[in-house]
């Protein structure tokens, strides 16, 4: 099966070729994406984009693990140099450093690894901030193999109806022009830890709940994990059975790889006869019942204890 990562999907971003030589890839945690989206919503009304700093570390040798980020205010400056209109983004370096020192107090291991901008393509506007982040002024530290900051572009305008997230590196060109930056796209993916997955699942659940009952009551979706998971399991099993039946009926050609995977799955759990299984269930059930009994007993004890102490206090007064 093909590994799924967001970078491999068709994207609307205009990009240059994927550079083969720096073997660096980027993985972005959902919390970073959410912060960037939030920062876009909260940008100044007059501005078209929001920018900010990416924090993270290098893991597994060549993966830039982006774990945190924050918005940095910026201004857009129009300038005419020798009659040519030029626009520039000026990042508030002071704010960046202040926020960095705040973040440092919480976590020492996260370093500046680059910056983000919302938008659908890289323009010459991105040059100046990128240069800023490349210097020591921005506290960017060269961590091998990351020698220059990463630029993360998040398409909040949903061009082509996808929210694409792309990472770029500035690759030095043989022609040594000053201020010449050429951005090359590097592989990137949204990396979801297991605990984050639970949260995302709940967010999806909250979303469908809100739909059902109208947006006003985007209801407490907690503790409903079981129901969701069960419906999902049934759905997945159905899909499997359908596929197998289709192959058996000759409707579609069977994929041997898939067949092997299915067999492997079926054999991964030991088989029990019904009696053993039933006994196991009974045992587990009894354990549970006993635990509930114990907890009820403890509750009772607490209740009695309270009654007694209240009565004693009453008697003393």
């Amino acid at each position, binding site marked *: 099966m093909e590994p799924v990562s967001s970078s491999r999907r068709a994207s609307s971003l205009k990009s240059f070729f994927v550079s083969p030589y720096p073997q660096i890839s980027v993985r972005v945690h959902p*919390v970073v994406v959410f912060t960037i989206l939030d920062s876009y919503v909260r940008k*100044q009304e007059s501005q078209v984009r929001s920018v900010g700093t990416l924090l993270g570390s290098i893991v597994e040798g060549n993966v830039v693990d982006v774990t945190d980020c924050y918005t940095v205010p910026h201004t857009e400056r129009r300038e005419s140099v020798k009659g040519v209109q030029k626009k520039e983004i000026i990042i508030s370096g002071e704010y960046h450093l202040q926020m960095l020192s705040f973040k440092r107090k*919480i976590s020492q291991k996260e370093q500046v690894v680059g910056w983000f901008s919302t938008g659908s393509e890289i323009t010459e506007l991105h040059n100046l901030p990128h240069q800023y982040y490349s210097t020591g002024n921005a506290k960017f530290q060269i961590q091998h193999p990351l020698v220059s900051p990463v630029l993360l572009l998040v398409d909040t305008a949903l061009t082509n109806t996808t929210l694409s997230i792309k990472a770029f590196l500035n690759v030095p060109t043989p022609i040594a022009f000053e201020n010449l930056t050429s951005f090359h796209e590097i592989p990137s993916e949204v990396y979801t830890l297991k605990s984050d*997955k639970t*949260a995302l699942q709940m967010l999806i659940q909250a979303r469908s709940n809100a739909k059902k009952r109208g947006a006003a009551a985007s209801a*407490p979706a907690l503790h409903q994990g079981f129901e969701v998971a069960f419906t999902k399991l049934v759905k997945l099993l159905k899909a499997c059975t359908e596929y197998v039946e289709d192959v058996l009926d000759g409707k579609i050609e069977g994929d041997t790889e898939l067949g092997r995977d299915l067999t492997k799955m079926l054999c991964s759990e030991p088989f029990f006869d019904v009696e053993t299984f039933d006994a196991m269930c009974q045992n587990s059930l009894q354990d549970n019942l006993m635990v509930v009994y114990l*907890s009820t007993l403890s509750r009772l004890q607490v209740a009695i204890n309270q009654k007694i102490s209240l009565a*004693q*206090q009453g008697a003393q007064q």
Partner: protein
Amino acid sequence: MSRELSRQDRSQGLQRVEVDALVILKIMKHARDQTGASGKLMGLDVGAVLQVTHSFATPERNIESGDTTQDSQYSLEMMKALREVNVDANTVGWYTSTYLSHFLTERLLEEQIGYQEKINDKCVVLVFDPLQNAIGRLAFRAFRVTDELVKRRKEANQRGQPLGMNLQQLQCDNLLEEVPLSINNPLLVEAFLVDNVLGDPFQSSVDLDTLDFDNSAYMQKNLSALIDCLDDLASEESKRQFLDKRQPRPYMDRRYNPMDSLLISSQIQNYCRDINTYSEESMGKLFVVNHSVLKQDK
């Protein structure tokens, strides 16, 4: 007195806490990075709903020195900075991470009372349990201190006593009240979810972990914590009885803090609640499995 009343009226208005998806993930990240993580919640107080739209971590406090000036300095500057990027720079409470609902401490109560008295009566504390999260449940709960306890605190302050001396006739379920919690996904977050999570079978298949019915490790930890609490309660009680026999008014004795036994009782009720919900769930699963197996057998 009239101010007192209007204050109570307003707090009765708080019916729901609405937490943004971003805050959920931010807190989870912080709890992953360090144990006992805590920080501030920011947002808006809109009628009966408290909207939590942003949060930030606060540095670990030096407990020995108990110095809070540095802490508040940090928060103040952080809020100033966040206001510059248009975050709702308005404190609506705080969060803390905990293991197995073991969050009921005198410190938490005192801190929460401080928030409710000094900042906003609607302030809440958001409690997050990473351990429950690991078994596939999103374990966020929102609490506020009951008006009764706030009142007691005030009375105790006036008399210059610690809070523990002014708890007569108070029941353990009168300490904290839970506020219903809901999650809010902003539109762009929804776009991201639809794009990156719903469409991706690998991202969304993990919730099957919730189906696991042998999470005995979780149950074991809960039970042993419960037993510890019961032990503590028993020793508190014997201490009280001992002092009771020697002196007519044990509540004046500094060696005994009535707050402890209230907190422990409350804690026990919490554990029992968790254990019960958890066993209910796993019994449900057992019945489903058992039934389907027996049906196939016939």
